[in-house]
């Protein structure tokens, strides 16, 4: 084994077992404090989980994390606090997800139930979702995602907003000043009378993003400053909620604009280029709910309009290479009916129709397409607590799109609690899932393939979870093993016709398997110090199982840009009004060639740890709460590459001030 491989293995081993050791250490420290009987309010009280979640692998992101990352985007949140791998092109740049080692389009994103994946590309750019706009975020892993919708061969990310019925009047203003001429501002205004609530959030995030780096991608190598990486993002989220007796009506409006310059690779030394991407999103949801003792009826309708303009030109010759403008519209209607005849039995039916249109045209190449798609999905699900310690769920979807009927997409889950308090359990989940091709896969000119079949997968999960509370200490952990076999995996690769362009085809059978470990704990010492620890580790091996020609060495190899190992650690300690937080994400080795060759010449992206540190203090004065924090990103000044030959910033700083008034 090569030394650098050995180094990587060592690092991996550290991550793999490190979390367990940390948990053990944590449990030990807890044992010493068992005599401590001071009640604490921060520890959440464990209740029985809702029957709808029995047998599913779901991760709820703590509101503490949402609050802490209020000035970040979901891409940073997922990267730092979940097993999901985020492939980010750099600060403020495009960030796509790989959930359980699958492709970006295999992670489905729902905002209050409405799917946000681009019908054109299939994926979601997580850098366009500010955490500030989110009240609740959860992940459904693997087959558990079928409850929300199909297509999530890796899993789903559920983003939700909630009414705060107790808010009579509140204002919150957050400002962050960050290195590289970055300024972020967030404002939240809420008011209401408990029957009708209004909430308005606006934000702006601008950066010149001109960080210094050492450019070893050119000769002679030299110190450089990142150019053409500036971005400007802003958005508005307006929510109105009202409730009368057992009925709830809400309207939500999301407007978002992002203008980004796209930087060139480190090796670029050509004439001045202008390369930009502009994104605009307008989303609206109207939701009506009627909740009764044993049943719930819900209807919502959502509109999602996205525009993406990509432009590239050589400025000197005024030669426009690309001037691509796309507009996507999706109109969704969903009707849900939940019936719970008793506490141990629940049924859910859901009907969803989505109509999407995509219009894309490149004014430089004078090519594009206009396509639309109508899809229906029906869900039938049942959850049953067979015995006090045993629950099971069964659901199936039937879907129809473009004249293609997918009759039966089932998922079966069971959960067995090892104790009567439902603290530890074993879960098993088996499912079939499928993912329809994106409209680009079908119609892009040249290379789109209208004959593509949907990607079809079978997957299974086995999980053990544990949660406990002893005195002032609480802890939770879950270890999951998963495997899925995905057939007809869509790949863009050189045209079989010998043409110089690439073509979409159902080429591969892909086997994805791995483990996810999630642990968290909290304790409070006698002197008032609160200590919080969270860790995640995921192992995902995703390989191509049927490379055909004899010369093709990609068979059985890890897919490119998907790390086998990913981990993150978060520790927080609070003392009186002071807090210290450390967050350390780890990304394992990633291959950039399909045959996974490793040489000394940067074909493999090396693993890296980042350490981010936050130090803050809260000041409370009557109804005014203030919070000031200093944040150091990449504390160790690690030199790393997330994507081949794209420069990343070293250590940098930010100062955040939050002022909150609540009546």
């Amino acid at each position, binding site marked *: 084994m090569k030394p650098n491989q050995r180094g990587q293995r060592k690092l991996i081993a550290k991550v793999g077992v490190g979390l367990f050791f940390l948990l053990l250490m944590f449990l030990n420290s807890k044992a010493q404090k068992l005599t401590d009987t001071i009640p604490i309010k921060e520890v959440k009280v464990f209740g029985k989980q809702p029957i709808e979640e029995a047998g599913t692998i779901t991760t709820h992101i703590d509101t503490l994390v949402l609050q802490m990352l209020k000035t970040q985007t979901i891409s940073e949140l997922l990267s730092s606090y979940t097993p999901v791998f985020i492939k980010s092109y750099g600060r403020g740049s495009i960030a796509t997800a790989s959930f359980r080692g699958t492709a970006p389009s295999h992670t489905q994103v729902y905002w209050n139930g409405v799917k946000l994946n681009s019908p054109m590309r299939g994926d979601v750019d997580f850098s366009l979702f500010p955490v500030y706009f989110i009240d609740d975020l959860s992940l459904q892993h693997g087959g558990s995602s079928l409850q929300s919708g199909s297509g999530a061969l890796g899993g789903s990310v559920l983003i939700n907003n909630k009414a705060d019925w107790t808010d009579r009047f509140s204002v919150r203003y957050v400002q962050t000043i960050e290195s590289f001429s970055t300024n972020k501002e967030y404002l939240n205004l809420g008011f209401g009378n408990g029957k009708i609530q209004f909430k308005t959030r606006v934000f702006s995030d601008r950066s010149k993003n001109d960080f210094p780096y050492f450019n070893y991608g050119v000769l002679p190598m030299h110190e450089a400053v990142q150019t053409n990486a500036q971005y400007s993002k802003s958005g508005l989220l307006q929510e109105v909620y009202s409730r009368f007796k057992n009925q709830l009506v809400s309207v939500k409006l999301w407007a978002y604009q992002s203008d980004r310059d796209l930087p060139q690779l480190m*090796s*670029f*030394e050509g004439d001045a280029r202008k390369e930009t991407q502009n994104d605009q999103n307008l989303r609206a949801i109207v939701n009506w709910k009627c909740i009764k003792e044993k049943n719930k009826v819900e209807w919502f309708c959502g509109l999602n309009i996205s525009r993406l303009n990509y432009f590239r030109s050589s400025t000197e010759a005024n030669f426009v290479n690309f001037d691509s403008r796309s507009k996507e519209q999706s109109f969704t209607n969903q009707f849900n009916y939940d019936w719970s005849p008793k506490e141990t039995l629940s049924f859910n039916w859901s009907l969803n129709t989505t109509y999407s249109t995509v219009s894309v045209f490149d004014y430089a190449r004078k090519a594009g397409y206009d396509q639309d798609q109508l899809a229906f999905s029906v869900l039938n699900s049942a959850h049953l607590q067979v015995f006090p310690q045993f629950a099971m769920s069964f659901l199936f979807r039937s879907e129809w799109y473009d004249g293609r009927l997918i009759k039966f997409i089932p998922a079966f889950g069971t959960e067995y609690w090892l104790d009567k308090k439902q603290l530890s359990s074993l879960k098993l989940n088996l499912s079939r899932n499928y993912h329809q091709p994106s409209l680009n896969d079908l119609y892009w*000119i040249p290379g789109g393939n209208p004959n593509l079949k949907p990607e079809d997968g079978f997957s299974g999960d086995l999980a053990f979870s544990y949660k406990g509370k002893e005195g002032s200490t609480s802890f939770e952990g879950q270890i999951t093993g998963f495997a899925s076999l995905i057939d007809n995996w869509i790949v863009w*690769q050189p045209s079989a016709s010998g043409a110089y362009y690439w073509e979409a085809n159902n080429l591969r059978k892909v086997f994805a398997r791995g483990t996810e470990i999630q642990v968290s704990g909290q304790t409070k010492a006698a002197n008032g110090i609160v200590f919080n620890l969270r860790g995640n580790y995921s192992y995902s091996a995703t390989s191509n199982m049927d490379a055909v020609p004899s010369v093709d060495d990609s068979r059985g190899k890890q897919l490119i840009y998907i790390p086998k190992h990913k981990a993150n650690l978060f520790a927080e300690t609070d003392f009186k009004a002071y807090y210290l937080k450390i967050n350390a994400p780890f990304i394992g080795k990633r291959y950039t060639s399909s045959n996974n060759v490793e040489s000394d010449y940067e074909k493999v992206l090396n693993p890296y740890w980042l350490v981010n540190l936050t130090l803050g203090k809260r000041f409370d004065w009557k109804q005014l709460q203030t919070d000031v924090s200093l944040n150091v990103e990449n504390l160790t000044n690690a030199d790393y590459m997330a994507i081949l030959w794209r420069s990343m910033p070293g250590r940098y700083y930010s100062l955040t001030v939050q002022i909150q008034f609540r009546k």
Partner: protein
Amino acid sequence: MKKRLYLMICVLGLFSCAKSPVDTVFFDFTGNSGVYIVNEGNFMYGNSSLSFYDPITKRVVNHVFQARNSAPLGDVAQSMTIWNNLGFIVVNNSGKIYIIDSSTAEYKGSISGLSSPRYIHVINSQKAYITDLYARKITIFDPSTFKITGKIQVNNSKSEFNQHATEQMIQYKNLVFTNCWSYDNKILVIDTNTDQLVDSIEVFKQPNSLVIDKNNKIWVLTDGGFEGNSYGYEKPGLLKIDAKTREIERTFRFALGEHPLSLCLNAGNDSLLFLNRHVWKMAVADKKLPEQPFIISANVNLYGGFYSLAIDPSNSEIYVGDAIDHAQNGVVHRYNPSGKLIDEFKVGISPGGFAFKTE
């Protein structure tokens, strides 16, 4: 008798265990003939590379540029031209030319600030041309000093498409002929004495390569675009043009949906070879296209067959690049002039260009 390939390697083992930063590896290919293989890599990955193959020892050294100079070659290396013991490597999407000593692979200098450079043609020791996909000009530089000395404007303002995208170059007397491939159908004629555009010849849609045979006939291969292409889609073709009169003397058409590319000549300049999934060969005197392939590719059903082609000008040996899935190390197959396999070896990602070292 050529000397055997001699590698002077400071750190033993090119793909050794050393951790980054990797120590410099020194090469000495002096006196050896051989061929540099330009591996394009993937667009926006910056993973292009240079390989060197010695046909006598059958030894291949990959990552020659990075091993010797400790820096990557850049994004999408397009072509390489050897002149006067210098190798000019055109790194297309990095907008630059890297110049190396062709015997040691040592970095000698660069020409930067280009738009989308494609090929280099050396006219004399003070003048060379760089064609470009997007610059609407041919850049003139001094191959001895690597300084840019001028430009030849080739903008076609009459077209609704961005023209002219200049590509390969061949020379007849004082005239350089260059094919305009992307969204175009012209062969431009440039007077190398005045550096002026003097004429253009209209051919079929999208001429992708050209050669000049022993009879001073220019052969042009056109790919015809693709289905849905706003510029058009037609049968690919092969044209024979008299270099002196600039008249089209003969035309051939392929079937719609075929994708011929990489037109080459054998050492005697009397046979044409090109790719159309397989390798095809025809004599310059032939009056119809060949009906059977000359060398068959095993990978046609999945990856569209061979990717690149070059002929050793000293002995007509045939080098064929196979990029497989364009995401892993490609393979180069070497055949004798009658199409019999001599050797095959692994190179970098997407082997697209060859440069024969003759001294």
